[in-house]
């Protein structure tokens, strides 16, 4: 009895020709219609057998989001695309060395996650994904304003906008009520009063001014912008930091630091404020939603002084507070870049299309529970926002006013250098620590910025 399966028998010329035809037709169809055609045909395109696609992303703050991608998202994408999609997650700080090594050697992952304005840094190594980006933007209500200066270089989308991770001030509702604030302070002056009163009770405000990738810059830049300060003029070639607005903001920071803040924050990294908040050492801090989410996830372990679950006493307030010229946050603007050295560039673009297809993106979006905001405005209307906890609902529209560093000029590699050297953060730290007077700190920052922008 012949037990061999049909595919085990040697192929005849006719069969080979048929398969070859199907493969060619499949690739041609996919090329012509992209992911739409693939999904409409309900059949995976016939990419060369064993085609692999490697995507590298950060370790998501929400582990469930990574778990969904690994267990459901990427396997589904593999089926839809007819290729084996491998997702690798690594730490945020480890992404740059990986991208650098990949670019230099011309080998590595096909797609890398990109942050802020990284497409400007790797412009020569990234594929133009304008066709994908424009289609998604058109279908889903347009990208938030921050993405154009971040991910568009020379009129081309070199990064496909993916999401925005917003931050806000997590605060203890009952403690602020104790000092007369039933709601979180709305202005910088009110914050100064409230935190001064709280510090006297041993519950200071917690803020890092260390060299951290998240919490320190996302505090310092919005503070600068809120008081009317800017790194450069609109051309991006003339340093404009030494202004009344900047000096006022540094003076404010110095006062807030001494009167209302935990002064150990100069040495904090991104995790210290989380721990201090959960431990009840600080009354409020600028952070993503991770403080609230961890407190809720560990409600049996994290309790307030009354023995109640801590998360019930946490709320979020919009940051920055009302200043002289407005409220402009600096959020993580995240995207994906297809690498030029990739042999599967078309397939990589198809994966991006698959990720951003509404029904696929929706699943990931919902798992993230508001921690990651979608790149387009249409998702503000999604029903998820009404179902998630109230403290997380404020992230719904939070991304509207976010800016990118380099303001008031364009966001370029030079502005990334300023960000990477923590010059704006150090300007505030130098004054807050008492190392320099506010005017001296601004003068110092002006000198450092000139070395970069005007060199």
């Amino acid at each position: 009895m012949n037990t061999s399966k049909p595919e085990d028998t040697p192929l005849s010329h006719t069969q080979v020709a048929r398969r070859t035809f199907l493969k060619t037709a499949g690739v041609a169809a996919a090329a012509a219609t992209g992911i739409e055609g693939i999904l409409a045909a309900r059949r995976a395109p016939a990419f060369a057998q064993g085609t692999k696609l490697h995507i590298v992303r950060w370790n998501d703050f929400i582990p469930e989001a990574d778990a969904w991608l690994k267990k459901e998202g990427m396997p589904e994408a593999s089926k839809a695309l007819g290729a084996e999609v491998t997702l690798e997650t690594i730490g945020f700080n480890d992404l740059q060395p990986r991208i650098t090594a990949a670019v230099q050697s011309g080998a590595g992952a096909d797609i890398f996650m990109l942050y802020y304005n990284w497409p400007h840094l790797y412009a020569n190594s990234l594929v133009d994904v304008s066709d994908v980006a424009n289609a998604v933007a058109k279908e889903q209500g347009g990208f938030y304003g921050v993405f154009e200066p971040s991910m568009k270089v020379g009129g081309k989308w070199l990064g496909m906008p993916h999401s925005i991770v917003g931050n806000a001030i997590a605060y203890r509702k009952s403690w602020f009520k104790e000092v007369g604030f039933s709601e979180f302070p709305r202005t910088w002056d009110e914050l100064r009063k409230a935190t001064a009163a709280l510090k006297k009770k041993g519950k200071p405000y917690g803020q890092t001014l260390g060299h951290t990738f998240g919490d320190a810059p996302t505090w310092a830049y919005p503070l600068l912008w809120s008081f009317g300060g800017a790194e450069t003029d609109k051309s991006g070639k003339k340093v404009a930091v030494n202004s009344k607005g900047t000096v006022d903001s540094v003076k404010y920071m110095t006062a807030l630091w001494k009167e209302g803040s935990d002064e150990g924050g100069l040495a904090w990294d991104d995790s210290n404020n989380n721990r201090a908040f959960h431990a009840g050492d600080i009354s409020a801090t600028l952070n993503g939603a991770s403080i609230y989410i961890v407190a809720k996830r560990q409600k049996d372990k994290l309790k307030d002084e009354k023995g109640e679950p801590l998360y019930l006493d946490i709320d979020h307030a919009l940051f920055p507070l009302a200043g002289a010229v407005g409220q402009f946050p600096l959020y993580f603007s995240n995207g994906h870049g297809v690498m030029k050295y990739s042999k599967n560039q078309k397939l990589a673009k198809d994966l991006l299309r698959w990720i951003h297809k509404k029904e696929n993106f929706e699943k990931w979006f919902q798992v993230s529970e508001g921690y990651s905001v979608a790149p387009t405005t249409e998702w503000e209307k999604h029903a998820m926002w009404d179902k998630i906890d109230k403290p997380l609902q404020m992230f719904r529209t939070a991304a509207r006013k976010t800016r990118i560093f380099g303001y008031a000029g364009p966001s370029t590699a030079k502005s990334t250098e300023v960000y990477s050297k923590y010059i704006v953060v150090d300007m505030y730290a130098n004054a807050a620590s008492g190392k320099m007077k506010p005017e001296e700190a601004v003068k110092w920052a002006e000198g450092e910025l000139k070395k970069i922008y005007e060199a």
Partner: protein
Amino acid sequence: MVIERRWKRWVYFYAPLTLFVIGTLFPFYWMFITAIRPDHELYRSWRAVTNTPFWTLQPTLAHFQDLLARTTFPRWLWNTFFIACVSTGISLFCGLLAGYALARLRFPMAGTLGTAIFVTYLVPPTLLFIPLADIIRTFQLGNTPWALILTYPTFLIPFCTWLLMGYFKTIPKELEECARIDGATRFGAMIRIIFPIAVPGILSAGIFAFTLSWNEFIYALIFISSPERKTVPVGVVSELIRGDIYFWGQLMAGALLGSVPVALVYSFFVEYYVAGLTGSVKG
């Protein structure tokens, strides 16, 4: 007199020794106590009256269980062990031959070459990983243990060569010359006379090389991408730190378990190791 001697012994010996032991062992104690501390204590305020930072009354193995169940830590441990052993073996072999040649053979520029080899050890991996990535791609070794096994010797061989070269220089030439007078070839004298005497030096070079391979981070991060092929230093950091959320209990459990093999290697060979650092033949 006796009282004075005892006083001096305490001040000049016991007190510094105690401080040294505390300073050396405290990080391990801190790792251990954090690894067995329950979560609610990890989140307790430093200012809380119930805070007991240096001990815990409710030890738990939950972090170890989570580490072993939720990550592929045993696999990372095996990967690290395999890569460290093979790269140490390759480096020791090359270091032995190069060290002997530089210490014993007379050829032009021997001294300069020895210094040049040591200088290559000083080139930081943060600079070297870019050209090495190109080589790894050329040989299609990316995401395989061989990417690390073949790149670690770039810093291990110079180190072993330099250390063994110094050690060979402390072995009297006369021992080797006697063997050669008795009819041994240079190679025979090297194998039968010099290498047995140099065992402490070889072991200490091996221990150092093993430790350097075990703890290496940047090459392991760049050249390995699959989670199941990662080494302990990269695996622990990439899986247990999520943005600003650090899983401290599991991180410390991973660091503690990861340091056990190195501690075992040191404890088995400590006498050779000390002898290797202090010289070979005592006069």
